[in-house]
């Protein structure tokens, strides 16, 4: 090595002890920074996390627009007759669906997509690193098992909801612009869809919905992470079979379906608990619209015992996954 380094080494020898103490104090990286790099690392490895949802949004948007254009002749007629009947009525750019319900349907399809992406990610998150032996590399760096597992849990709980939000908002913006453009084409103001589907309010409602859904689904993701850290192979089977078997045993031996309905409520549940409206209105149409933000009721949601029970289960699963990651060796 060259001379300057040797010089520093001599001075290091002089007050060796103090130097080491100072070096140790300086040589820590804040846990938040470790978490940040760990999450970035997950995104590098799993690009489908942030490319998948926008891609699906793009496909949905394409389908919606293509359908509207394909039905052009019919729409032409409908729009004209609608305007003739009631000039204040929103033009039927999307056939019989209003832009509001179309927004809701596409948003829900994307939320389901993101749920599937998150679940698949969790199944592989702690298993893949053991399968390809890269866990030995990760463990050679000063990142604790807790930080690692938390960074992986942050993907479905924080990152994916944000990706979903951005994708849905982007998709809806495009749909609104398209509707406005069509209406302008037919000599209307083009402002109507923006009042039918108020953009910023919908974005806020969506954010609220995604946040509550993430909390509601947290035990599912945590369970998948736990299975991923525990199982050597057939992770999906280990994740799905035990709850199903438990539900079946409960049904056969006790004749009850408490656990089964718990599972169903957890998987399909929360919107009814989170939002004051019914997804299916009295006429059988889908119209998940709220008129003002004050209708949102986070207090009811946050005081649900089922929510806190689920979060406690999630915390237990995460703790077990951390414990297992320390012990697990490459497969």
């Amino acid at each position, binding site marked *: 090595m060259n001379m300057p380094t040797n010089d520093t080494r001599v001075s290091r020898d002089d007050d060796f002890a103090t130097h080491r103490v100072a070096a140790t104090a300086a040589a820590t990286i804040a846990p938040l920074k*470790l978490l940040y790099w760990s999450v970035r690392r997950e995104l590098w490895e799993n690009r489908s996390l942030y490319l998948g949802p926008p891609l699906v949004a793009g496909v949905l948007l394409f389908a919606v627009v293509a359908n509207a254009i394909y039905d052009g002749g019919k729409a032409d007629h409908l729009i004209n007759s609608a305007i003739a009947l009631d000039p204040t009525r929103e033009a039927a750019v999307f056939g019989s669906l209003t832009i509001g319900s179309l927004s809701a349907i596409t948003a829900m399809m994307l939320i389901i997509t993101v749920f599937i992406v998150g679940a698949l990610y969790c199944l592989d998150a702690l298993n893949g690193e053991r399968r*390809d032996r890269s866990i030995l590399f990760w463990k050679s760096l000063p990142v604790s098992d807790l930080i690692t597992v938390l960074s992986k849990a942050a993907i479905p709980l924080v990152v994916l909801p944000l990706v979903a939000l951005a994708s849905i908002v982007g998709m809806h913006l495009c749909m609104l612009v398209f509707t406005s453009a069509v209406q302008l084409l037919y000599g209307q103001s083009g402002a109507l869809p923006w009042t039918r589907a108020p953009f910023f309010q919908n974005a806020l409602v969506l954010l609220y919905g995604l946040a509550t859904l993430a909390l509601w689904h947290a035990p599912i993701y945590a369970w998948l992470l736990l299975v991923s850290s525990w199982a050597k192979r057939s992770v999906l089977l280990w994740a799905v079979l035990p709850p199903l078997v438990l539900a079946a045993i409960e049904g056969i031996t006790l004749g009850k379906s408490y656990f089964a309905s718990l599972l169903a409520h957890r998987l399909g549940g929360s919107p009814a608990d989170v939002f004051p409206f019914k997804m299916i209105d009295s006429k059988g149409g889908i119209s998940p619209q709220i008129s003002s933000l004050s209708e949102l009721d986070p207090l009811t949601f946050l005081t649900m015992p089922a929510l806190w029970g689920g979060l406690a289960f999630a915390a237990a699963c995460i703790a077990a996954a951390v414990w297992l990651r320390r012990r697990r060796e490459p497969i």
Partner: protein
Amino acid sequence: MACIHARGLRRHYGKNVALDGIDLNINEGRIVGLIGPNGAGKSTALNAILGLSPYEGELTVLGHNPWTARDQLMRDVSFIADVAVLPRWMRVSQALDYVAGVHPRFDRAKAAKFLAKTSIPSTASVRELSKGMAVQLHLCLIMAIDAKLLVLDEPTLGLDILYRKQFYDSLLNDYFDHQRTIVVTTHQVEEVQHILTDVMFINRGRIVLDSSMEHFEQRFAEVMVHPEQAAAARSRGPIHERQVFGRSIFLFDGATRDELAAFGEVRTPGIADLFVAVIGNEITETKSSKGVAA
């Protein structure tokens, strides 16, 4: 100051004892070669030292309990496990970014300097690199970490002889500074002999030899003997004998060089030859003692 201190370190998998209560004391500033046959317990011992697997007994590495404080320990320790374990999806630039992000003692400029000496393109992903290149990349990352303890478990596996030589030279010249401690295991014993300060033989989960190289050179001697003197040499109790070109080479433990000089030219044995002698004897001894017991 002791870098690694172990008392009665044990690990067993079911009935199979991988580490049979070993005692270790490795001081700061040493380059220790841990030599043993396959399945001797080398990797088990290193995994315990690195906090990768649980163990019984007492173990302190740089003042930490490796099992409970692995993440703290890894600020001062770097290691390469016995196989190429860099994630295949990772790009070279991402590897640099990530290690720089999480490691307080990583010198990115230094890593880039080491990388520049190789033919690894910085845009490539590990998947696209040859096995040798992937190992090179890993070594570049590890050598740019200002660690107090470096553990290398078969670091040059799959590398050609040119790079192996270059690696050990670089380890000695660019990395080692007499305060760092290096523990290395390898099957290519002769290639590391000149860089080691200490050597340890491990067999069946036990340390069978633990010696500094100075002591090694004083203690062991090898002499090439003409056939007519072979019987006389044999009577002095060599620990090993082998035939080369019709002559016998005897390996002595604890004989002075002066008394051996009468038989022929005396020299320091290679670690590999001593290893064959010591471990080979162990195996025949256990076989014969088993025979007696039966």
